[in-house]
């Protein structure tokens, strides 16, 4: 059984979540290395198409991390992101890939432990629901194997 | 002149009652109720797909009621018919001896059976009344001469309970100017509203027939579900009736209606009353007796 590491894309804002992730690093907090961070000025910059393209490319999950409601450096960016994430969840449900692979979290700049917790949550979720079916199908095609769907994910 | 028109002009306190046509061709209950009501009301209103719920056409049901010896008021809505069909049906109604006509805009499909139907509303009620009066003068809407003009006792509706009341009053006055013989109001629960409405109509020489309604648990449920067309049942009625079973609730509302009728008659607030008691029309004769009519 192939072991697949979850691939999580984190689209995070500079002012809050990126700072928290950075701090987690300085604090030497342990958390899975499955996250690729995309640093944005604000989660308001996240567009529905970025999320869809990331899924199409094979990401197992997308985590959008922004400032807590009311704390957005650009005032409303995180609110717009919340709406877009919810909309994208319905689009992903429509396509059959599942909106549960996408989640928005509010992680303040000083909350490194919360960042770690959320990353862990996402990893656990992917272990439960399995990898992005597109990613799985492509890997199997490349290896020429005929594995049953729902391969195990190793932690 | 129709018997109903005669009654109106004689100054009698008139009584009209509402009776919905059957939702099918089984006229057994309908005719039974016609028999019950015909000797207790000066005329029976036969609505036209009321609340946009399918029923036999008013003109057909009115014709059956007339054959039974009743005096019907045939209704036409603007919702389901364009000007050609309205004119055509009016000529047909007159030829069948149905000269008491109520012209209304019509409830929208929101409350009804067929939400996907196409709304017509080619004319509004005022324009339809004008059209009816022009037919009586011998011409159709295209300016063509008629081979035999009809004659009607024409009526419309008004809603004294509406808020704000001024737009309703303006519309009401337009109907009077167009020339209606009577106006039936939507259900009255608050006599103050009826009195206030009379302020707008004081100068007008028009017969206003006040609507009153016996309701039961079924109507409360419809209202709860947002499906009750017409005037909402007031909060105090809902409170009182919710604590009772259906029979008691109907009896309670019947008592309220008796009170309203007595006050309307003694206060000279209207030229008559229009009674609605859906599914319970058999209670009407007893109620009229209690109210002293």
């Amino acid at each position, binding site marked *: 059984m192939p072991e697949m590491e979850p691939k999580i894309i984190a689209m995070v804002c500079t002012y809050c979540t990126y700072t928290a992730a950075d701090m987690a690093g300085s604090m030497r907090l342990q958390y899975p290395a499955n996250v690729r961070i995309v640093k944005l000025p604000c989660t308001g910059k996240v*567009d*529905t*198409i970025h999320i*869809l*393209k990331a*899924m*199409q490319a094979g990401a197992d999950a997308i985590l959008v991390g922004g400032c807590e409601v009311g704390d957005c450096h650009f005032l409303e960016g995180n609110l717009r992101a919340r709406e877009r994430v919810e909309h994208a969840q319905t*689009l992903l449900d*429509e*396509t*059959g*890939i599942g909106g549960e692979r996408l989640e928005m979290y509010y992680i303040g700049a000083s909350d490194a432990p919360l960042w770690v917790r959320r990353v862990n949550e996402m990893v656990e979720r992917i272990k439960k629901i399995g990898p992005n*079916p*597109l990613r799985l*199908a492509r890997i199997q095609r490349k290896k020429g194997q005929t594995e049953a769907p729902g391969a195990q994910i190793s932690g | 002149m129709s018997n109903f028109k005669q009654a109106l002009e004689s100054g009698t306190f008139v009584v009209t009652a509402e009776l919905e046509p059957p939702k099918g061709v089984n006229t057994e209950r309908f005719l039974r109720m016609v028999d019950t009501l015909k000797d207790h009301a000066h005329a029976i209103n036969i609505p036209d797909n009321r609340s946009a719920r399918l029923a036999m056409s008013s003109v057909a049901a009115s014709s059956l009621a007339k054959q039974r010896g009743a005096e019907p008021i045939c209704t036409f809505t*603007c*919702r389901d018919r364009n*000007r050609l069909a309205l004119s055509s049906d009016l000529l047909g109604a007159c030829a069948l001896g149905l000269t008491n006509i109520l012209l*209304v*805009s*019509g*409830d*929208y499909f*929101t409350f009804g059976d067929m939400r996907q139907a196409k*709304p017509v*509303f*080619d*004319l*509004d*009620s*005022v*324009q339809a009344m*004008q059209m009816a009066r022009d037919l009586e003068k011998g011409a159709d*809407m295209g300016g063509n001469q008629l081979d035999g003009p009809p004659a009607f006792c024409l009526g419309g*509706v*008004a*809603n004294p309970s*509406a*808020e*704000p009341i*001024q*737009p*309703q009053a*303006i*519309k009401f*006055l*337009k109907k009077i*100017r*167009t020339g209606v013989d009577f106006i039936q109001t*939507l259900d009255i629960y608050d006599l103050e509203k009826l009195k206030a409405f009379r302020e707008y109509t004081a100068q007008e020489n028009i017969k206003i027939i006040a609507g009153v309604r016996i309701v039961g648990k079924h109507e409360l449920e419809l209202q709860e579900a*947002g499906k009750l*067309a*017409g005037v*909402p049942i007031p909060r105090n009625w809902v409170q009182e009736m919710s604590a009772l079973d259906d029979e008691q609730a109907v009896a309670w509302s019947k008592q309220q209606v008796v009170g309203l009728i007595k006050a309307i008659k003694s206060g000279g607030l209207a030229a008559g009353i229009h009674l609605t008691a859906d599914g319970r029309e058999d209670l009407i004769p007893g109620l009229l007796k209690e109210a002293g009519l």
Partner: protein
Amino acid sequence: MIIAQRKPLQEIQQSLEGYSKALIVGCGTCVAVCLAGGEKEVGILAAQLAIANELAGKNMEIGEYTIERQCDREFLDELRGMAGAYDVLVSLACGVGIQFLADQYPDKVVLPGVDTTFIGANEEAGYWTERCRMCGQCYLGLTGGVCPVTICPKGLLNGPCSGTRDGMCEVDPEKRCAWTQIYERLDATGRLDLMRDTTPPRDYSLTTTPARQIHKAYKRRYTANE
């Protein structure tokens, strides 16, 4: 401006059954403003279709192209070179653009990707309301700028009906009664006499479909060639 709504993905997928090369054509005018069929939405639909097809093991080539407008031939000509490579064109333009596109490429299968809903105003980003039903005989001068044909679901020219409840409409209890609004506007500008006069019936012959309009200065140019 024309408002439209993207059709549900399932409906589009069903209409694409059996085709192997689809070009999604967007429009940069009305449908872009109402977030239904602009360049972004073309990208979103293409990504959704690609994902859904791959999940279903379907092989379909999906192209994306957005032109300024689909109701002007000069922009539709831009597709000339690439349309040949596809067996179906999915247009995200309004019904006008979809038909114009189909006229230009009569040998191609053209499918709608949106439902055109109404002509309306941009109240705010993401929120549009219907304001005009194109009756061809504008009544706005008589009604203080509130359209009786559109805002009143019954299109009453002598309103209100008796279904008004607390100034709200019986059809949509969250919408103010059009004639109550008209009354207020006329009252505020001292023109209630306009509401007291009976408005005659509408002339529906003005809206017999399909309508056609040629500007006076262009009549000779177009009728000479008929």
